[in-house]
């Protein structure tokens, strides 16, 4: 199977992909529908053996794979966990995925992994640290990574620059690419009471190699202002599809991922979301 995986190209195709869930294994092999690539969470494939790795080896022979890390804590104040870096290097080494991405966030403090993508103040100190960590990661895995914009729920009094300026500077200093999560843009802009289209217009779009879409939940804060939660547990909201069109009009066709991590639906529902993404991509492909 490793020989099959070697045919994987070095980039994702500019079509719809889905976040892979083991319960969809047989459905995907029987009929992937419009889905032309798959994304996995790196940390779920770091066991010594068993079914997850066997499934992944098999799928990698048939689909381009994107490896998406959710646990490196690139924004962490401490140093990157050398053991986790080598696990990532091992996975990327044998799988040779079409893409590797991680988050602009932190999740580990003094050895405790908090299992959430926690927010960062956008300061010069954060910028220097994030760039150092990305350099270290790109060195460890021997390839360029993509960095994803987060969903945020609050603001840091000490922030000195906008998120788009921060990401632009990270990409410039480290040479990394960017993963633009359009749902995160909508969630953050709503929560920060800013204009999501202005965010897209200001985003360093030339560095973007992948787009994420996912569902969110609606809530409110203590003052009754809207508070959206990035839950990945339902269909993508209509305004997010509209924001995708706005994004694709700037960027041209890109690989677009449907993320659905909680209350995961039957395969036809997920494939239906991928088909919807395909229709949005077709509008810009011409």
């Amino acid at each position, binding site marked *: 199977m490793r020989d099959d995986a070697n045919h994987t190209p070095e980039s994702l195709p500019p079509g719809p992909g889905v976040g892979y869930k083991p319960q969809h294994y047989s459905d995907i092999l029987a009929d992937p529908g419009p889905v032309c690539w798959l994304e996995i969470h790196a940390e779920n494939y770091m066991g010594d053996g068993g079914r997850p790795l066997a499934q992944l080896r098999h799928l990698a022979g048939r689909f381009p794979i994107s490896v998406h890390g959710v*646990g490196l804590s690139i924004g962490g104040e401490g140093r990157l966990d050398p053991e986790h870096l080598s696990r990532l290097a091992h996975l990327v080494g044998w799988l040779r995925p079409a893409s590797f991405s991680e988050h602009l966030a932190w999740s580990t403090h003094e050895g405790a992994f908090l299992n*959430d993508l926690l927010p960062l103040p956008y300061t010069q100190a954060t910028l220097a640290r994030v760039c150092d960590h990305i350099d270290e990661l790109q060195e460890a895995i021997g390839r360029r990574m993509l960095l994803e914009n987060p969903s945020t729920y609050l*603001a*840091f009094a000490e922030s000195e620059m906008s998120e788009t300026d921060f990401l632009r500077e990270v990409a410039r200093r480290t040479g990394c690419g960017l993963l633009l999560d359009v749902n995160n843009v909508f969630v953050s802009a709503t929560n920060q009471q800013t204009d999501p289209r202005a965010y897209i217009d200001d985003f360093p779009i030339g560095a973007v190699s992948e787009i994420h879409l996912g569902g969110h939940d609606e809530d409110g804060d203590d003052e009754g202002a809207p508070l959206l939660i990035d839950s990945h547990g339902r269909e993508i909201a209509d305004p997010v599809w509209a924001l995708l069109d706005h994004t694709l009009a700037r960027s041209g066709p890109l690989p677009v991922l449907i993320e659905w991590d909680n209350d995961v639906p039957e395969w036809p529902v997920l494939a239906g979301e991928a088909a919807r993404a395909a229709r949005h991509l077709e509008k810009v492909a011409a």
Partner: protein
Amino acid sequence: MSGGISQAAFTKALLDPDRPAPASLTSPSGAPAGKRFDVYRNNVAVSLTEALGVAFPVVRKLVGDEFFTAMAGVFLRAHPPKSPILMLYGDQMPAFLEGFAPVRHLGYLPDVARLELMLREACHATDTRPIAPDALAAIPPEDLLSVRFSLAPAVRLLRSQWPVFSIWLANSEEGAPMPEMRAEDVLITRPGFDPAPQCLPAGSAAFIEALMAGASLGEALEKAEGDAAGFDLADTLALLLEGGAITSILTRDSET
């Protein structure tokens, strides 16, 4: 550089719902973050509680969902994951349950957690190729007692003073019989990808325990016969062979 909140302070507030959100975190209007900070608190607690629920489904069933959620909240704050690989999160659960006063009356609970932990470890253990079921037949009878076995990395053995297998089964399979009070030994093998736990007959656990420690077949046999009368060697070897638990036979000639 600029002041502001450290990740140490953020983490402390994150794991303690009684603390207010750190002061430099705000809403866009500059109001205290309040409920906005709670989103992160909630993400951490809910996602780790969910991971523990998936990891220990029978423990959860035995104590009930509501109690399990409250207990998971205590556990995850005392023992947050030490790595981002959550597939094996909860290795401290058995010891935690032993010291957790509200479940002291459920003496079997720590062993149920041990069994569930072992099942997960077996799931993710290195893949190996078992020996052929008839491979032992090729060993000359006079050499048989001196052979040693390499066992698959997925093999686990749990010896309990509780009916741990029966409790696990009764809470995992519809229509399984009610547990009777007795000590039970459980062997986990992984033929293919699905761990297969089974209750062992008398003496088998002592035998397998000795093999796992590197004893020869003869030495293991002695242990088993010392442990329980009526130990059945052929049956126990058949369990191991059918479970794909033996990956190689080391004879005196093959040992290097």
